[in-house]
């Protein structure tokens, strides 16, 4: 799954400025994300952490600055092949209990873009989706309606969906906010496992700084500017947290 060498810079953001109207969402942001990182991006509400994630994925265009993905500078649109290397796990809001999708359908959705428009999934696609589901230990619930799962289980399935496209980098947006502490811990353990055993780079965004500190090997604190970028156990981090969260 991982063809890049360790410590290689996968995502390089240089002097990024993002504005919405007359509001600066990101100011002079410089972040490098390395292969194998388990990165936690934290910050208070409205600090620009989701914007940062969207900027990486090309959903938000920066006013100034440069982004390089997997060693290639992105000029306009992100190439399709590059997009497939990202696995995005959006914030889950309530999934309708009766939504007509089984767990396997949801995971197979991760292969849709790869299969291409109009074409249907091949057996290989389905097998890869199943493998992703095995990775998150949910393959025993293949035929269950997605709406019937608990929040943590749904989150696992969505991670499998992102992994199904054989992504190198998992980007998770605020998944902690919909889950209780125990479920969050379970999902973090899963991410840790994927990071350690399968070498998947993880970028997770959240405002629950404690849980991020417990699992991530790198923390970026953001409040429009990068307030902190370093290891989770540095005492400086406490100072920064004290400043930007209170």
């Amino acid at each position, binding site marked *: 799954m991982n063809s890049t060498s360790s410590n290689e810079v996968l995502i390089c953001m240089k002097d990024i400025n993002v504005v919405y109207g007359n509001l600066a969402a990101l100011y002079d942001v410089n972040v490098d994300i390395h292969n194998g990182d388990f990165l936690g991006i934290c910050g208070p509400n409205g600090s620009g952490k989701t914007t940062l994630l969207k900027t990486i*994925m090309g*959903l938000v265009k920066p006013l100034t600055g440069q982004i390089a993905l997997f060693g290639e500078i992105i000029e306009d649109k*992100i190439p*399709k092949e590059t*997009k*497939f290397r*990202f696995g*995005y*796990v*959006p914030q889950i809001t309530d999934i309708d*209990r*009766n*939504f*007509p*999708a*089984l767990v396997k*359908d*949801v995971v197979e*959705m*991760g292969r*849709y*873009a790869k*299969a291409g*428009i*109009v074409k*249907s*999934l091949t057996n290989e696609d389905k097998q890869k989706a199943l493998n992703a589901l095995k990775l998150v*230990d949910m393959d*025993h*619930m293949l035929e*269950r*309606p*997605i709406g*019937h799962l*608990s929040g*943590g289980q749904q989150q696992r399935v*969505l991670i499998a*969906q*992102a992994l199904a*496209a054989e992504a190198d980098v998992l*980007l998770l*947006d605020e998944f902690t906010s919909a889950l209780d502490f*125990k*479920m969050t811990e379970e999902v973090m353990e899963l991410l840790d496992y994927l990071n350690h055993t399968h070498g998947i780079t993880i970028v997770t965004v959240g405002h629950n700084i404690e849980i991020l500190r417990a699992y991530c090997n790198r923390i970026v604190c953001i409040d429009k500017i990068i307030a902190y970028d370093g290891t989770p156990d540095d005492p400086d981090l406490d100072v920064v947290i004290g400043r930007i969260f209170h």
Partner: protein
Amino acid sequence: MLISLSSLAVSVASYEENDNYSFSDEPTGEIKVVTSLSIIADWAAEIGEGYFSPAAVVTGGEDPHTYELSPSAIQMISASDLFIVFGLPGLESWIDLDSTDYSGLNVLYLATEDMMKVDPVTSDKNPHIWMDPNYAKIFVQNITYEVILLDIGHQTEYETNRDNYLAEIDDLLIRIQEDPFNQTLGMRVVVHHPSFLYLLDVLGVERVGVIEEHEGSEPSLRHIREIEATMIAENISIIVTQPQLEGNQILNLARKTNASLAKLTPLLGINNVYTYIDMIEYNVLALLNPEAVDAKGWILTAFIIGMSFFSVTAIILGYFRFRGESLDKLKESPIVKTVIIITLIGGLSAITVIFSDIILLRALVTALIIGILGGVIGVFVLLKGMVFLGEAIAHSAFAGAALGILLGIDPLITIIAFGLIASLGVGYVNEKKVMKDEVIIGIVFTSFMALAILFIGLMPFYSTDVRSILFGNIFLVSMENLVILFFVAISVILIIFGLKKEYYLMTFNPAMAAVIGIPVRFLNYLFLALMAITIDISLKAVGAILVFAMIITPAAAAYQWTFKLKKMLFLGSLFGVISGFLGVTISYLWDIPSGSTIVGIATLIFVVSFIASPKRRKSGTGHVVADCEYCSRTILGKQYCIEDNCVAKDIPHKHDEKGLIIYKTDLGAKKIPSKHKHDNGGKKQ
């Protein structure tokens, strides 16, 4: 007042037999006389016999209402010495006599608007003035006077011809009016069109009702039912119609009231009638010898029985199939065999009826197409949560239809234009996130209704077309509509199925779809456009008010039954088709409005689905309680699941001596570690 003349529509069949007319293609002789309609030419030919032969612009073969002047006809008119027209509104609107093409043209206007009677039944002024031979006499004299002015040299001859012809008309009047054997006097009839007001008055025939009150507009179902009631109450047994206008409504009305059809003609060129006098005599004969309509009573009965047995069997078999039970056991039962045989017989007779009545067949095919199309689109509308937007589009279509009728262009064009404006406009506002969807939809909805009311207000009269757009009538779907519907439906369904997985993902997880490079924006607009087109082309069948039910109701019913998209698409279409078929059948048999019947059946299916839904059934696919003391508790003798985070929640499972969860899969038993602590027997610690 707009009086159109579609009632004068004439079959093309006899056009080539022009030789039978007493006038020619080109005016010949002493003076060149051209007339607008062939009836006038016939009169002029009688007067000019031996000296000139007139030509008519519109012969019996064409419809004066939709006639278009050819350049050669314009040339013929402008080169004539005398051009004779009735000069009544609507009749000759294809020629603009004020145009410079005709400067210096000698035009004789035979009639004036004052001569038109106000029809006591429809309250419109009636232009079919020539159908009264007494008026014909006046016209003949007018023509003679004008001809003599142009060709004074033959005054005596023209006057002789005129007197001979007037004598013939007088004879005719005596024959049809005063003959002691005259059987028409006192007859009471219902007429299809107002064309025969003058003739029937001359004959002393009383018109009890007019089916098409305003020409060129379809009568409402209510009006037909009123006529039906009147006919039965007053014991009317003759419907006066025209050979080329025979339709299902008239046939059905005749069947129900046991009436016969008298097929009259207001123009020359039909059924070998080539002169005015022949035409009047032909009409009197037709009135005296109306054609009976075969009752079809037994076939209808068989149809009802067949359809009901068919539906019951289908429901029973469908139920067993759905439960996954084998049908083999059922097949052996003698009762089932009998039911199947009756069903086959009934079904066969039903098919006979369907194929013997093109209108019913067309309605059923329409129902089939709209059912499938609505079901497929509806599933995605429902999942994407765009129900109110669809409703707004349906109402924008109403405004579009009103504008189309007002401007006199094909309403379908304006309907689709308005539908696209509404859907893409709301889609754009939604994308920009300026305000909540429901606010903008509310504004669009009401503003389009305001436009519709404005357009209707600007119309010279409240057209029944507007009503038919509002309420629809699946039996009035024309062959042309059906062909459009078919091709549009095929394209929409192909597009939706081609993009099925993209739309599925966009429905479930739009953010993910955008990230992995699916053109979410384009596909969203495309979907809005497809939805608008679906609504717009289905309008004619169920009407603007109800059309959205064909999209949302079957899909909502399908939603109750399954967790699989494919199955939901299938069921949505199936429910749509069933509602359409049953609705059409019921509406056909009992003559109740088709739109509301179809929607009523669809709603019934939804209610039944909602109540019977396995998703709502408590013992259904909810928690399957594990036979495991850790994961379940007994309350009042019943087991309930208490471990919500159990990995094997909802799966019947046990624990082995090591505490591993054991459960069955299709591939056999599987073991996974439990996250909970268990003792050796799987018991709670």
